[in-house]
């Protein structure tokens, strides 16, 4: 340890030329390749990048908790303690006592998935208290008092009962608060947050961001915030580090990154975000869908109550016109996915009607259709799923996956082969890749396979359930553009289910806002986005992070309370 005079008063952590490598059988994977940055007291550094850019490994390298076989190969991580002594964390033994005295005490970390990042079989009080025991030897009643105080700080309701509960008894947002309480236990100087809001709804995300900000100010912490969401970056960052394939592409104040990016990659990243801030070009120039056209799908008073008594879909009515995209937006648990599944009879709704206009002009109620008719209809109404990994069989190659619905429709031999090639071209995949298996493709390519499968039998309506949620932002707009191109080529209609208002705004003609199983507002996308009538829609819109640091607004957001409606800040 030595005193480092060169560092300014406020610098807590200096990372210099950090290299973390994963030796693999096929060679060395450089997950982090020469990354440098500084963390300052009271300031927030955001690390952004797409999946696989090495941002998470960078954060874990600081605490030396990189998963095996990853190892720090070079560089330094200088931690300046409160007493001005400096330690190079990169030189410490990952299993040794010295690094353990830093973990949780000087530098604490919170993670993306609060459910799986907390033990399911230990009470939350025990898990929070552990850090106090390890670092300060605080036990018994004193520990309990401190934990209660921490729970109060993170604003968990009724701390006295909450302390003895288990993680699965909390909602996602509350679980993340528990994580934060755990991180704050020893008053760390640095908080590393690894995508802490990615798994949360926008309104919950806004709450958590607020909380982190508040605690950062009261504790004077430096925050290293990892995210792939440029909107979040714009809302909270002081400085930004843009990473791509393990390297730093650009580093600078948030203002510069958003308004005067120097690097090409940064420019593209910002571009793909800004692109999603408005309606797609192809949709602006298209003639509006005639309002009087006979609807393709006419849903009337649809209701589904689960055996548990939960009204997942509650008296929902909506229409989809030919060639139109209807967006369904809502938070998790709003019933939007359940409703989408009712449309294909994956779930059986108990009441209402789903009138679908067949190609020959007849109208059929999908809810009550018999088996043969349903089989026919399912050729015309297809689905695209959220998880591009889980929805493709790992034991079939891409050609077989895309051919499957065609085979069921009776296409054979030469014709089948040709059709598969044609479909692959249509969604932007090389037909030569047909022998490959899904795992050989990236997330975006897998979603293209899913789309090719969905359009294989020339459907007329596609229900897309969070089709772009698992994709990086740069891929997201590509996927939406592809879907709109196919829509125009094939005359498709979409029911586009998403929690993400920006993708809805980008591609949907009309939008329906769902809240607790009901549709609270329907209208043209422009009108709903710009002039929401329902308070819930207003709250939802105002919680969305805005990718412009000059216009930070989520802390001024409007909060919706179904019982009584008030604005949060006045």
């Amino acid at each position, binding site marked *: 340890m030595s005193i480092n005079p060169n560092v300014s008063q406020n610098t807590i952590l200096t990372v210099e030329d950090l290299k973390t490598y994963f030796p693999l059988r096929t060679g060395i994977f450089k997950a982090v390749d020469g990354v440098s940055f500084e963390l300052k007291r009271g300031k927030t550094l955001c690390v952004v990048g797409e999946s696989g850019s090495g941002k998470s490994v960078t954060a*874990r390298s600081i*605490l030396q*908790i990189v*998963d095996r076989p990853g190892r720090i190969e070079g560089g330094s991580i200088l931690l300046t303690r409160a007493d001005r002594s400096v330690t190079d964390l990169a030189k410490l033994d990952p*299993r040794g006592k010295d690094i*353990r*005295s*830093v*973990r*949780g*005490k000087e530098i*604490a*970390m919170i*993670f993306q*998935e609060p459910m*799986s*990042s*907390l*033990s*399911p*079989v*230990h009470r939350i009080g025990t898990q929070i208290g*552990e*850090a106090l025991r*390890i*670092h300060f030897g605080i036990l018994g009643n004193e520990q309990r008092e401190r934990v209660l105080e921490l729970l109060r700080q993170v604003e968990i309701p009724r701390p006295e009962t909450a302390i003895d509960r*288990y993680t*699965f*008894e909390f909602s996602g947002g509350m679980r993340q608060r528990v*994580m934060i309480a*755990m991180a704050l236990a020893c008053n760390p100087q640095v908080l590393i947050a690894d995508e802490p809001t990615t798994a949360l709804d926008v309104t919950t995300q806004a709450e958590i961001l607020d909380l982190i900000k508040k605690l950062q100010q009261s504790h004077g912490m430096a925050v290293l915030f990892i995210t792939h969401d440029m909107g979040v970056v714009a809302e909270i960052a002081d400085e930004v580090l843009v990473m791509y394939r393990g390297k730093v592409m650009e580093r600078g104040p948030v203002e510069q990154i958003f308004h005067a990016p120097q690097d090409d990659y940064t420019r593209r990243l910002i571009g793909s975000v800004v692109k999603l801030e408005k309606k797609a070009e192809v949709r602006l120039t298209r003639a509006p869908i005639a309002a009087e056209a006979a609807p393709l799908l006419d849903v009337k008073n649809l209701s589904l109550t689960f055996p548990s008594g939960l009204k997942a879909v509650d008296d929902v009515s909506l229409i989809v016109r030919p060639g139109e995209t209807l967006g369904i937006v809502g938070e998790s648990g709003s019933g939007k996915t359940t409703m989408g599944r009712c449309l294909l009879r994956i779930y059986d709704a108990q009441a209402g009607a789903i009138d679908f206009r067949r190609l020959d002009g007849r109208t059929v109620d999908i809810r009550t259709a018999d088996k043969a008719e349903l089989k026919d209809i399912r050729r015309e109404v297809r689905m695209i799923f959220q998880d591009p990994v889980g929805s493709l069989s790992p034991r079939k190659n891409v050609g077989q996956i895309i051919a499957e619905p065609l085979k069921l429709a009776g296409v054979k031999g030469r014709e089948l082969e040709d059709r598969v090639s044609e479909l692959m071209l249509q969604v932007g995949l090389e037909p030569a890749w047909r022998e490959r298996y899904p795992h050989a493709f990236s997330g975006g390519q897998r979603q293209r396979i899913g789309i090719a499968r969905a359009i294989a039998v020339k459907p007329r309506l596609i229900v897309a359930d969070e089709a772009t949620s698992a994709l990086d932002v740069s891929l997201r707009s590509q996927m939406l553009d592809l879907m709109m191109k196919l829509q125009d080529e094939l005359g498709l209609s979409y029911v586009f289910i998403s929690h993400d208002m920006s993708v809805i705004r980008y591609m949907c003609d009309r939008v329906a806002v769902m809240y607790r199983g009901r549709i609270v507002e329907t209208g043209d996308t422009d009108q709903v986005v710009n002039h929401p009538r329902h308070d819930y829609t207003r709250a939802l819109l105002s919680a969305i992070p805005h990718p412009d640091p000059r216009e930070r607004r989520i802390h001024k957001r409007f909060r919706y309370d179904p019982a009584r409606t008030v604005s949060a800040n006045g």
Partner: protein
Amino acid sequence: MLRYILKRLLFAIPTLFAVSIIAFIIIQLPPGDYLTTLMADWASQGGAVEAGTVAAMRERYGLDQPLYFQYYKWIWGILTAGDFGISFELGKPVTELIWNRLGFSLLLSLLTLCFVWAIAIPIGILSAVRQYSISDYTATFLAFFFLAVPDFLMALSAMYVMSAWFGQSVGGLFSPDYVDAGWSFGKLVDFARHVWLPVVVIGLGSLAALVRIMRANLLDELSKPYVTTARAKGMSELELLIRYPVRLALNPLISTLGWILPAVISGEIIVSVVMSLPTTGPLLLRALLTQDMYLAGSLILLISVLTIIGTLISDILLALTDPRIRFQ
């Protein structure tokens, strides 16, 4: 919780009733009855039997009565007087025969269980934490080896080695001097010197299986995010291992503890026969072979009762160790 247990016990009653009927019917399924077997035995030893004798015996044992009446007599005796009937072959009350052996069966099972868990869990943990190391490969190889060797072969070789090379008296749980003696310190020492061999022989197979299960369970848990969280808290690697992943990896194992109860009666029959252990296994085998109706029926009924109790214990244990189950 209490309500749940009571409900489960209530549901057990019709199950037991059905099982007793099925057990009784299955025992009667093979052609003939105890007397036919007995006559065949006598005949093979050269004795001639008069037809009158057979009829008389049949009447004495009640075998001339219709099946449902025999069942009714048996079950009524159990319900009203705890009387499980008489063993035809051994001429003693079934209760007495079972009680004599049940204690040893239970003791042997518990000792084996302790032996298996004490050895297998640490090896499983080591094997998972040091995956693909020399110790892991060694443990894996030995585990598969002992899984593959049939237990009677193991029993025979162990007995041969112990008696031929070390001159120890093998077979049974006591030396001949102590078999009929009352309990004393000397008898206890003698018991300890005999019991370890069957414990090891019976245990090795399930020990090997448990090592593999523990290794697989723990490997699943080791890569879970909560392990990283605990590490980021500053916990030492050993404490972390025991507190989090091992604790969770043990959950499914703890819930299998209840299953040893039914195995007390019927488990390890072959080893018990080979090593002539005074447990219930050989008794059950003999009873089934000779169609000793009441003895076999009572043992099967007992197995069912223990299965039901064992499953209940398993469920309670699982609820105690895993709050996710408890709060559903």
